[in-house]
């Protein structure tokens, strides 16, 4: 039987493009990550609004997020009912500090995930360090070409063990993500909105639909990132307790 020449060419082209896609997918992930908040030595103010079924705001909370370096973040609660509370996230370990206590409470990734504030979602760790690209495919978005990246957590301690991330195929801007737990249960669906920030663009808003809590919607809005040198003592839970009043 005579080989089908056009089929052979198509297969070779596919193999070649698969190799290229693998590289492109890594680049897309890295560039998508750069749009997100959480650059080293920054402080950013965040507002979290819980929305009811009618879209009305049922609860509003304010936070300040201090990022020291990749994977090391302190979240300080600013709302009156939570004032004085802090959460330290360091190397996928989590501690909560309550006011009037010298005791940092070690919390599990699930407790961090299910907290009122969705603290883990406010101060997400780096996609690049935490996830590996295991697949990618073109994805149809409205009026633009997108790429669907299938990501797996690089370590068991990462809160969302699988993520399906949709990014703009040309600019790498993150558009949406489906976030899965260790059990492969869909936990949340996120949509990203970018906005002008200085000379470029950065993440301005994330809208989460909580698949575990009857589709509850949470809108997370980011302010402008400011340069802030995070003291090393804050990254030790005992030191964070004694950090006192944080600006």
């Amino acid at each position, binding site marked *: 039987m005579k080989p089908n020449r056009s089929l052979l060419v198509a297969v070779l082209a596919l193999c070649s493009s698969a190799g290229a896609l693998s590289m492109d997918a890594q680049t897309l992930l890295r560039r998508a990550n750069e749009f997100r908040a959480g650059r080293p030595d920054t402080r950013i103010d965040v507002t979290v609004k819980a929305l009811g079924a009618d879209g009305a705001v049922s609860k509003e909370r304010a936070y300040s997020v201090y990022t020291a370096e990749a994977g090391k973040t302190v979240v300080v609660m600013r709302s009156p009912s939570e004032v004085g509370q802090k959460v330290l996230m360091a190397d996928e370990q989590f501690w909560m500090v309550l006011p009037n*206590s010298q*005791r940092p409470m070690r919390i599990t990734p*699930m407790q961090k995930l299910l907290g009122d504030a969705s603290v883990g979602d406010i101060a997400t760790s780096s996609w690049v360090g935490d996830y590996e690209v295991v697949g990618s495919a073109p994805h149809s978005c409205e009026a633009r070409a997108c790429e669907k990246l299938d990501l797996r957590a690089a370590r068991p301690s990462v809160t969302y063990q699988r993520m399906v991330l949709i990014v703009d195929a040309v600019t790498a801007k993150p558009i949406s993500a489906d976030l899965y737990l260790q*059990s492969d249960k869909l936990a949340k669906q996120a949509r990203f909105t970018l906005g002008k920030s200085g000379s470029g663009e950065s993440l301005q808003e994330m809208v989460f639909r909580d698949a575990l809590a009857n589709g509850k919607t949470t809108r997370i809005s980011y302010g402008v990132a400011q340069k802030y040198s995070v003291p090393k003592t804050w990254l030790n*839970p005992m030191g964070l307790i004694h950090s*006192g009043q944080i600006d």
Partner: protein
Amino acid sequence: MRRTGPWVRASRRLLVALACYGSAHAQDLTVGGDARLYLRSTTGTSGGPLSSAAQLDGDGSLLERGGGFWDGMLRLAHRHAVFSVAGTVDHVSHHGGGSSVRTARVLEGYVTGDAGAFKVFAGKRVVSWDVGYGFRPNDVVQSEYRHALVAPRLEGQVMLQADWYSERSSATVLAARQRDTGAPPAMDLHPEGIVAGRGYWNVDGNDLYLFLKAGRLSGISTGLAAVTVPSESTSLYGSVRTLEQRRTMTFASGPANAVGGLASSNPVLVTDAGRAWQGVIGATWTGPQRLSLIAEVWWDGLAPSATFWRDWQARNAQLRAMGGLGGPAAAYAGNLRWQATALEQRSLWRRNLLLRAAKKFDDLELSAEALAWIDGGGWMLTVGASQDLDRASLELRWRQSLGPQGGLARQLGGAGTLAAGVKVAF
């Protein structure tokens, strides 16, 4: 009745100073606080000595029917100073009357700063160190009563403290004048000069602690604690402490052989006993459906022994029986009221098991908690609901004493207590 102490007077001056400073540096000063209003109602009567005494002489003035409190807390915080004060009006309603107590307390008032590699604190501070939910044996500086139906506000200890931190460890040393404000008067605990220390290490994702305390009256105690998070949903923890000297309640010898079985003074005595140990192990689990579970078991060597409670029960039964036979009712009732002194201790039972389940529905949390006194002490069931609003929270809790009729749980206060409250933050 109104109580103010030297700390309140001194703190007024500190408050004025902070207010003056704050007006000049308003951007550095944070002002916050909250107000709470709680009402409680006690239902049914227990089989305890107070009920028996009231049955004998008809005086129910020590049997609580209910009550409530209003309190407010103001907190001023600056980078180098913290000050918080609380005022409370507490009302208790008895069978045959009621009484109110107004209290003003300085909860914290301290200054802080850096001294070389150390962070130093001086003044009145809340210092809670240990791990655990229902029991924390290594809270050797700050004692918290962990089973109040409504959580009390913590009042700090006067101390000088120095901390040192590295990336994954820390050390704390402090000298304090320790005063156990929540201890019952019967325990006769005097303020004590102590020196205490805590070491902390984070090793391979596990938190490890070492504790040491030396007290002028209580001697030396040492402790260890650890917390680990083996999976995304589970945490395990444990804490153990040994102590050289413990205060414990005993019975004076021979009251049962006194004339008519009556004692002429309170037979429940507080004595210094020998070494003791305390320990707790526990686990938490949090599921994706916002269900969380806690299981904890602990041994508290500071609590009275089972033999103590057997003797106590026997003595109660003897007094009830003899009072019912036509003896001097007032005298037998008085003896029974002395017996109730034993129930004022912070920790009543040595072998304990606590199970707690809580489920969140948006901002509403429902919870159920069972504390079992293993080996015949009975148990207490607490169910609750709390609703978080934007600046306020509402809480409703019901506690019921259960178990065998002669069990210790059935001897406490009323059979059940309902507490309802609101807390508003500003």
